[in-house]
């Protein structure tokens, strides 16, 4: 008992000694006696009040005021205390953000220089009220992130001023935005899932998670199964081999406005996307009933590219695993055409009647039909015109001579 009380005494003495050298400012007792008034403003009209309850509930609630406001030691304190340096503690985040597009923009985009002062609070909110990111009240809680980023990226005036794409609206209506905003799915992709948080880089930067060749990996961090299929397909292999022209996820699915892939909207919008590279296949596809049905609306279930070729695991026709390999055609066509047989699947969904080398039979049939059309029409056009002229002349003649046309 004695030893314990003497230990207590020593502790108290050393605490006193510490106070004498650098007095810690206890929020409740010292600063909040003034700053606890939440309506308090400085000379410039800027709020300098702190909500005591919120501060104590915040993740920084256990800190002393001058742990952050380092140049304030006593009262009265300077009129213009130095800016708080978050990086003192959050060094990793600070260095990440220093290399990010947000930091770059603050120096390279005119008018964006004021951004740095809000580097942390811009996203994390009021410094005295920051809560942990797993707290639903946090501005960076997954469900709140789109709104937080959207504060700038969803503001049309801001978007216009800094030439930002107005991606917020696209995202909110997308399948990710729907899952997150309407259904409250924490696993649904929010802004940071793809872009990262502190070290957001331009999609033109090879280090960026949204750089072309990194996109399959980024999307694949959630869509693992799809990415596996994609990597087995010709597109995935080409991208892995360094191709920048082979399609990645976002080429077909778009980036922010991703829609449900089974929806009519997506079925219709995606075929021209495949066609933007596979032009010859697209033009022959458009000659067929498959395309015509879809184009006129209401019949979007007719075969689109990936219904036959698969969407992610696109394989060459020669590959026995390809659904359009000869051995698999009956099964593939049979998915829509009940009763498809060996003869039926000889139908060429990309036949080109204009190409004599590839489709000679079709070429000559078309040629014959065209010649028939041209000759019949030419003959009768001539016949009719001559007839018209002759009849009219006859009519005028008989009228002037008063006799009936004969």
């Amino acid at each position, binding site marked *: 008992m004695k030893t314990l009380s003497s230990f207590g005494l020593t502790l108290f003495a050393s605490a006193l000694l510490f106070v004498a050298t650098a007095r810690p400012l206890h929020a409740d007792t010292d600063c909040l006696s003034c700053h606890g008034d939440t309506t308090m403003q400085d000379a410039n009209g800027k709020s300098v009040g702190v909500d005591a309850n919120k501060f104590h509930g915040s993740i920084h609630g256990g800190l002393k005021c001058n742990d952050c406001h380092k140049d304030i030691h006593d009262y009265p304190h300077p009129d213009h205390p130095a800016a708080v340096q978050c990086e003192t503690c959050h060094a990793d985040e600070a260095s990440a953000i220093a290399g990010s597009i947000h930091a770059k923009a603050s120096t390279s985009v005119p008018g964006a220089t004021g951004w740095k002062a809000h580097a942390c609070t811009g996203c994390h909110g009021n410094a005295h009220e920051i809560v942990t990111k797993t707290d639903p009240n946090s501005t960076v809680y997954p469900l709140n992130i789109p709104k937080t980023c959207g504060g700038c990226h969803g503001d049309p005036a801001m978007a216009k001023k800094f030439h930002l794409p107005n991606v917020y609206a696209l995202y909110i209506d997308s399948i990710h935005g729907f899952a997150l905003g309407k259904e409250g799915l924490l696993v649904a992709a929010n802004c940071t899932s793809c872009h990262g948080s502190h070290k957001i880089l331009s999609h033109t930067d090879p280090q960026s998670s949204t750089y072309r060749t990194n996109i399959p990996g980024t999307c694949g961090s959630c869509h693992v199964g799809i990415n596996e299929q994609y990597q087995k397909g010709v597109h995935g292999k080409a991208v892995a081999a360094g191709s920048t022209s082979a399609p990645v996820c976002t080429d077909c699915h778009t980036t922010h406005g991703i829609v449900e892939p089974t929806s009519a909207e997506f079925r219709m919008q995606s075929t021209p996307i495949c066609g933007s590279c596979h032009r010859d296949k697209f033009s022959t596809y458009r*000659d067929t009933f498959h395309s015509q049905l879809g184009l006129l609306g*209401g*019949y979007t279930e007719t075969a689109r590219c990936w219904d036959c070729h698969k969407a992610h695991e696109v394989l060459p026709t020669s590959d026995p695993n390809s659904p359009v390999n000869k051995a698999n055609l009956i099964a593939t066509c049979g998915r829509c*055409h009940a009763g498809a047989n060996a003869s039926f699947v000889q*139908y060429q969904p990309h036949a080109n009647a204009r190409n004599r080398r590839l489709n000679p039979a079709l070429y000559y049939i*078309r040629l014959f*039909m065209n010649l028939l059309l041209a000759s019949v*029409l030419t003959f009768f056009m001539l016949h009719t015109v001559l007839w018209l002229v002759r009849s*009219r002349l006859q009519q005028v003649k008989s009228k002037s001579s*008063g006799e009936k046309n004969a």
Partner: protein
Amino acid sequence: MPEPTQATPAPAPEIVAAPAVAAPEKPRYFLRFTLGQRYLHGVLFTSFLVLAATGLMMRFSGSIWAIRFAKLVDGFGTILFFHKFCALVLTLAFIIHVREIVARGLFKREKGIFWGPTSMVANWKDVKDLFGHMRWFLGLGPKPKFERYAYWEKFDYWAVFWGMVVIGFSGYAMWFAPFFARFLPGWALNAALVIHSEEGLLAILFIFSIHFVNTHLRPDSFPMDMVIFTGRESEEEFKTRRPDEYKRMVAEGKSATRITDAPQPWLINFSRAVGFTAILIGLTLLVLTLSAYIAE
């Protein structure tokens, strides 16, 4: 009941100012097409118009008007439904017609169905008429005296006949592709679309330009030849247009069996309304076809 040739009234002068022979006789009317034939033509052109309109939308599915109209009628499903429905109607009309020909020609042994002046089958006179007509166009000879069906009318008939067989077969081959694939090679299905659309295009262009002008819009019948709707034509029209048939009818003494009443005013009005609507739709489709064809 033979009729004396001289009993036919002198053609009434057209010009009102001309001195009229006291109270001109009422013109006589002759029946050219039976009610059944007129109905058949009605079914034929109604279904053809719908087939053409819906078919063109599929053929030129990328054109703005096709997409707009498709939206208006709630998409492709409706268009395809009407195309298939009218295809069935036209097939039925075709079968009824062929059945009638077979019944009359083969079973009743009716003369003149397969050969002779009243037949649709081309004969030597048609060849002579074609060249004679062309000579007349150029002012090198007299106008040929036509029989019941002139050569261009026979061409119209056989063009439609062949067209229905070709378009019909290729259409059904696509409609019931897996079934047809049991006895047709797969590439025939590719060919079916080419043939169907090209032959359809030919039919559309031919009917809406050549047939319309030859039959309805040329100066002699302008703006419309009503005989396919009313079935009747005046004696004067009959004599001018098909003098050989008229002569034969009189010679065979069959005038009385073909004589009929004048078309009722309601029938004339009704025919005009129907006919003009059809011609208007046809010409609109012709313009759309040509513009889409050129734009392609």
